[in-house]
């Protein structure tokens, strides 16, 4: 088993009613429960707010927001266990973010050997 990070991007540009938002959240919960039940969930991670600050460079310049286009904005992350990248990709296809125009970026966790 190897570890992967799912970076959830976008999926926020379609306006949603509170009811739809709640349904969407329930779908996420159901999806995570299924991942957990199948032993693929290392850590749930968290959703992230859109607004924030970016600290950059030697001068440690602080600016507002990550400036990305809404569709590129990372909206959250989780840690997944899967046998290989193909498997991790396969599992990610159940993610509810795909239903609302978002994407899942699947990235293997790098093992640093010294």
């Amino acid at each position, binding site marked *: 088993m190897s570890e992967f990070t799912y970076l959830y991007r976008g999926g926020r540009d379609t306006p949603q009613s509170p009811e739809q938002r*709640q349904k969407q*959240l*329930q779908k*996420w*919960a159901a999806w*995570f*429960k299924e991942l*957990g039940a199948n032993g693929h*969930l290392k*850590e*749930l*991670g*968290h*959703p992230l707010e859109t607004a924030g600050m970016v600290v950059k460079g030697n001068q440690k310049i602080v600016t507002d927001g990550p400036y990305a286009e809404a569709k590129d904005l990372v909206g*959250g992350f*989780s840690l997944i266990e899967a046998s290989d990248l193909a498997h991790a990709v396969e599992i990610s296809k159940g993610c509810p973010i795909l239903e609302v125009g978002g994407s899942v970026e699947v990235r293997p966790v790098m093992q640093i050997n010294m």
Partner: protein
Amino acid sequence: MDAGDHLFRRESGRLVGALTRIFGVHNLALAEDVVQDAFCRALEVWRIRGVPENPSAWLMATAKNSALDVLRRERTARSFAPELGRFLQSEWTLAPVVEELFAADAIKDDLLCMMFSCCQPRLSEQAQVALILHILCGFSVDEIASAFVSSRAATEKRLTRAKKVLAGSKRLFDITAPADFSARLPAVHRALYLLFNEGYHGASAETAVRAELCREAMRLNALLLKHPLGRTPMTYALAALMWLDAARLPARVDASGNLISLLDQDRSQWDQELIVEGLKFLELSAAGADLTQFHLEAAIASIHACARRTEDTDWKTIVSLYDALMTIRPSPIIALNRAIAVAQNEGPERGLEEIRSITNRDRLAVYPFYSAALAELELRSGRHETAREHFRAALALSRNPMERRFLDRRLGACERDGTPPIYYDQV
């Protein structure tokens, strides 16, 4: 405020149940605190803004939000329900999971689940009933003490101990496992039966408190009937017994608070709706091979319920039902009630004979209605002096002013001739 006591009582059980499911049974005290806080907040807000249109939804939302606060604040310091574990740790799932556990269906199950959890075999039946009253019915320590005629300190101690045992169990009772459900069900029946009887025959002088105990037992039993695994012939029999007995409650005490014996009750005051429902339950209880104590007691109650006038009572059948009851669950009290029915059917001398042959008769000595029954039968046999002695003995044992007044009046009746006979309510 008209939303008053009952609202909080009803909601208390539901909310503590839901929160305990989320926090884990080891955090029972935390769940109770959160519910108390929600009630305090409600009183503060409602005092100013008035009671909202749907107060229970308001309370639920408040408790839910407090639960989320607690879970966020303490998720590193405390462990919560193990089966929810990490879903409470992440913001991805925290709110939806809590939302789901507060949904209507889940809450209904929480009450059942808590009821089964309270009927832990490690707790005495008395402690189980006290826990049910406290957690599910929202009775305060004082109210429970008054219902059981025990001191506040003793009740508090019993509750604290019981809660510690409950909180020490690994998790709440799992009502989704059919085998476990069926195994625990008789204990739950027993506790509800005790709860009802405490209301119906108990020692508390507060008729209002006692009627409420009956109502709570009925409410919880109705909950059992809604669950596919709880809907057994025995649950139906227990329901029949409760409904048919409860139908007589309005006629048991007159306007000035005097106890009225079954024979003298104004039967037009019996609650016909409860009788009809009770008879329906009795019919439904007839499935399956088991004939339980509840079946027989319900059948006896049904015979009383169906007799328009006291004279129409089918005492012969009642005696045979008591005979059957004695083979299933022999006890001096049942034997006493049987003897009284025999007296109705075959005369006071036969009744006295039956009473004299009760095994373990000495265990009845502390029970006021044993002496009173002897007194009635002696009185009907014309032995006034002996009757007086027994009434005096009964008076000395009476447990509250209502019983005292009742026995006083009967003692007075010994002075007159041709006094009407009295049949004591079955115990």
